[in-house]
């Protein structure tokens, strides 16, 4: 019988250090077995369980686009108390780890097709949003979608991730980018301001709009109200949540928010769904 707890072997092809503090890294992974790669069909917003044998498993959002055929990318922050994140960060290129997935639901790409898209990301929670942006901007897809606005913020310039990509996107004319930091430094020439405040300045019209918003719990809490004020309806405010997970498939009983499992019924939820759940609203 197919053992759903067994991770598939992957090699760490490349490790990219994303931030100044060097505690956020992007791991580029290649499946060892072609059939595993072929079976791993995912879409934007989904996650996988990354497995370091001897340390454990953790759920990480997939940061690469479904159209990035040859590899998968995961961006992981190292926490001092995290057994697996610490183990991951001590790996070298060429190491062997495991991947289980893809799991979870996904961003409503079909619904997004005829809408004005706003993407708001805070800190390093922007990983699955990055997957989405890459996907939307791909030449195969771009024409299917209308205008795209991105607001991305971090605590400081050193904490911004995917810097090279941000630059590329800023130079495109089929996407509007707003980058902000909570606090600048001597070299920072860009915008300074907290996301909820900057949002009020730069948000496009909410008419026929849909917004994907991801960030740490505190940022989500303070961004919901401005989004609602701007006129986005609760069904059109879409977010992705995190919880500690073990199985990733809705069996172990750990990641639930009320009757919904973040691994199975999420991690993508609309604000309307969350409002209806006790212990749900961020």
């Amino acid at each position, binding site marked *: *019988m197919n*053992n759903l707890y067994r*991770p598939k072997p992957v090699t760490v092809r490349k490790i990219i250090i994303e931030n100044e503090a060097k505690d956020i890294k992007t791991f580029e992974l290649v499946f060892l077995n072609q059939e595993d790669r072929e079976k791993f069909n995912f879409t934007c917003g989904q996650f996988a369980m990354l497995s370091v044998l*001897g340390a454990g498993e953790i759920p990480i959002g997939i940061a690469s686009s479904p159209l990035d055929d040859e590899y998968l990318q995961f961006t992981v922050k190292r926490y001092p108390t995290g057994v697996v994140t610490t183990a991951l960060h001590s790996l070298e290129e060429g190491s062997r780890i495991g991947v289980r997935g893809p799991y979870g639901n996904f961003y409503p790409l079909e619904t997004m097709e005829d809408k004005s898209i706003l993407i708001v990301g805070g800190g390093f929670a922007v990983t699955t949003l990055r997957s989405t942006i890459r996907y939307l901007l791909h030449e195969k897809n771009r024409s299917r979608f209308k205008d795209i606005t991105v607001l991305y913020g971090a605590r400081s310039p050193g904490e911004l991730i995917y810097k090279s990509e941000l630059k590329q996107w800023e130079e495109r004319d089929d996407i509007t980018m707003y980058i902000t930091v909570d606090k600048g430094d001597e070299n920072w020439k860009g915008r300074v301001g907290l996301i909820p405040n900057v949002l009020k300045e730069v948000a496009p019209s909410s008419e026929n709009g849909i917004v994907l918003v991801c960030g740490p719990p505190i940022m989500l809490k303070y961004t919901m109200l401005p989004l609602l004020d701007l006129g986005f309806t609760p069904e059109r405010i879409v977010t992705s949540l995190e919880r500690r997970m*073990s199985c990733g498939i*809705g*069996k172990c009983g750990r990641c639930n928010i*009320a009757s919904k499992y973040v691994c199975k019924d999420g991690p993508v939820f609309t604000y309307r769904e969350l409002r209806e759940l*006790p*212990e749900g609203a961020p």
Partner: protein
Amino acid sequence: MKEKIIRKPQLGTWLEGLRKEYEIWAPVKKNGLVLFHPIESAKEIHFDFSNTKKTAKDLFFPQSEVLFSFRGGEIEKEADMVLEKPRIILAIRPCDAKSLALLDKVFDSEDYQDPYYVERRKGTLLLGMACTHPQTSCFCTSMRSGPFEKTSLDLLMVDLGDDKYLVEAVTQAGKDLMGKDGSFEDVQEKDRERLAKVKKQAEEKIKSKVVIEGLEEKLDKIFDSPFWDRVHQRCLGCAICTYLCSTCHCFALLDEGVNSREQRVRSWDSCMFPDFTLEASGHNPRISNRERMRQRVMHKFNYFVKNFGETACVGCGRCIQNCPVNIDIREIIEEIENEQPLPS
């Protein structure tokens, strides 16, 4: 429906015959505890018990299960998912058998089947023993079960007193087990009368009644009520209620080292432990005992109902008997019924 009588002295002969093909697990008393053990002879079986200390879930979803072992970053060996020999669980109580039906909804569902659990379920026959002497803490009849309930059983045995068991086949597999032996006699009219009497007495003995109708809706309304501040006060936050509960099934996947061989293990976990939902960032969505107790009650009587259509409780009463501070779920349910919802 096939029913037969077997006299108690013949039980050993029948089981001896079954032992050739099956590994038989039955209640055995040791150190003051009645637990399921594999047995060599009927003499080891302890029949004079209300319920085993630990539940039947242990035999399908063990406290610790090796999934696979690895060395040097590579998976070496996946655990064998096939039982060496098919099993019989003898004298399982109807509430525990019902709990397996509830666990099936989790571990053997349309979208995912847990290979370890499923193989064990497939390879195990359940020979139930009706409860002729339910305890005062039993409330199975309120939880869609009962002392003579047949859910998930292959056979149901009833102690008629008078040195006889009435054995009823519930499934074809159960019927086959009975057909394998000449120890069985036909059922007489007086046996049926005795059966009816014993059943009625047992059901009357269950005085504890808990109303679950409307409970799910009521819980929806009192999620933020100060009721939860009162309920959790004495709770120690240990795992007794969860580990000894027939339907609790939370687990963790952990990498462990045993004698230089490393293994990924699935182990029981408890939503009552403080670090159950603790994230590496330090954020804990269920930060205190209050939230965790609320989660436990909501999960059993509301979330599970929403997801699977039934309450995740069979009324076995183990949590009541074993809680060190006598937290009583029957009381909690009654308080929930009486709690005024906050004005919305």
